[in-house]
């Protein structure tokens, strides 16, 4: 249950540096590799000869050579050659629109005719001296929408991440959810509180005192199909909070792309782009390590939640005030999927 006519993060560029990568995106098994002139290419991961996964092969002079019997596949999905064979009549395989941009490889798993590269969402922090980015990838056996719910309702931090970013004030300060076109924004502003351990570390990393009261903010922005960007930070209390000048605060954007693998599993690309001490690689590394630990705390919860839902499909769930962000995000996804199905039905009629 995901839109297919959309750009999704498929992998990071380093994952295809050494050779092809086989990865299922939105139910499509795809081989990603660097083809002609090292440009990223994406093909159906299915050799037209015997159905072997092409991703188990190797790249040779821009062609993807099947690791089973040596069929050489071009980036256009047409067989170029095969030892001892005439390949003129070999059926072509599907290609997927793909683009390397903003430090990720993006793929369009739906109708290729509709893929517009201008729709790939701009990432301000990429290749920008004012910002530093560190991140990672988890495979999680849950519906991507459970991760959207998770990120659009940060009250879970108090319980799942109690030793790092959780604190009781998240529960005590109500959040506000707004829908702006295809974007959902859920925000929470906490004033005059103690910074939790992760943010104390960040304050020290920016040369700021960690033993004074802070104002803390969380602004979660869902953009379909599967991205949540969360502006997060703390400022020494009384300097304007979110709007405090740079010397009083630590400010980051939590970057989340939860790309569906199947209906009940995701490739979760997480990271943090920060706008303080961007040149400090050691700080990038320690934030990345800390974030990795914190985010891994969600894995078990989400996977067992998914299993519960599969075991009890008839059970209705509660949508509370804290769930407004996730509920609104799902409405946008439902609209997109309905439009897609209408499109398919229409073209089906025409045929």
């Amino acid at each position, binding site marked *: 249950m995901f839109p297919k006519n959309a750009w999704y993060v498929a992998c990071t560029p380093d994952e295809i540096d050494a050779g092809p990568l086989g990865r299922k995106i939105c139910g499509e098994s795809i081989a990603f590799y660097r083809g002609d002139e090292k440009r990223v290419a994406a093909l159906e991961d299915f050799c037209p000869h015997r159905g072997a996964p092409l991703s188990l092969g190797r790249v040779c002079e821009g062609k993807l050579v099947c690791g089973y019997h040596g069929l050489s596949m071009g980036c256009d999905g047409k067989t170029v050659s095969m030892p001892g*064979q*005439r390949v*003129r*009549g*070999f059926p072509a395989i599907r290609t997927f629109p793909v683009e390397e941009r903003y430090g990720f490889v993006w793929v369009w798993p739906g109708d290729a005719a509709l893929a517009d590269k201008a729709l790939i969402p701009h990432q301000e922090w990429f290749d920008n001296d004012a910002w530093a980015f560190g991140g990672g990838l988890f495979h999680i056996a849950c519906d991507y929408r459970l991760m959207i719910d998770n990120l659009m309702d940060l009250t879970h931090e108090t319980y799942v991440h109690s030793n790092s970013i959780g604190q009781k004030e998240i529960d005590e300060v109500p959040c506000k959810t707004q829908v702006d076109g295809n974007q959902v924004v859920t925000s929470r502003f906490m004033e005059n509180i103690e910074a939790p351990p992760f943010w104390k570390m960040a304050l020290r990393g920016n040369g700021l005192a960690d033993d004074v009261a802070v104002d803390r903010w969380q602004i979660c922005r869902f953009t379909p199909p599967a991205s949540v960007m969360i502006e997060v930070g703390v400022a020494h209390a009384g300097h304007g909070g979110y709007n405090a000048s740079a010397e009083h605060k630590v400010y980051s954007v939590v970057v989340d792309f939860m790309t569906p693998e199947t209906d009940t599993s995701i490739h979760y690309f997480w990271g943090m782009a920060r706008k303080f001490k961007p040149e400090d690689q050691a700080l990038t590394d320690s934030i990345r390590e800390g974030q990795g630990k914190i985010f891994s705390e969600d894995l078990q919860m989400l996977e067992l939640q998914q299993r519960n839902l599969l075991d009890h499909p008839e059970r209705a769930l509660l949508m509370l005030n804290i769930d407004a962000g996730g509920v609104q995000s799902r409405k946008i996804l439902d609209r997109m999927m309905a439009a897609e199905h209408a499109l398919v039905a229409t073209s089906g009629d025409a045929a």
Partner: protein
Amino acid sequence: MSDSFEVKIASSGQIVVVPWDKSVTQALSEAGVDILTSCGQGVCGTCLTRVLEGVPEHWDSYLTPEEQAANDQFMPCCSRSSSALLVLDL
């Protein structure tokens, strides 16, 4: 598929009718003459057979256009005949 036609086995003189809804290899097989095939769609070249007389109608993608134009061989798994009789080197 095109109309029916006949094929003749050069070595035995046997003549087999190929009806409109059967391939040459199917019709020959039912008459007890088996030709080894693999892909069954004119791609792989396994069933390549020499043509001694007649004009084949090429439906394969294995032979080059030049080889097809020479009309001295064809792929009996998918190709047919534009003459009433094909004499095959079998």
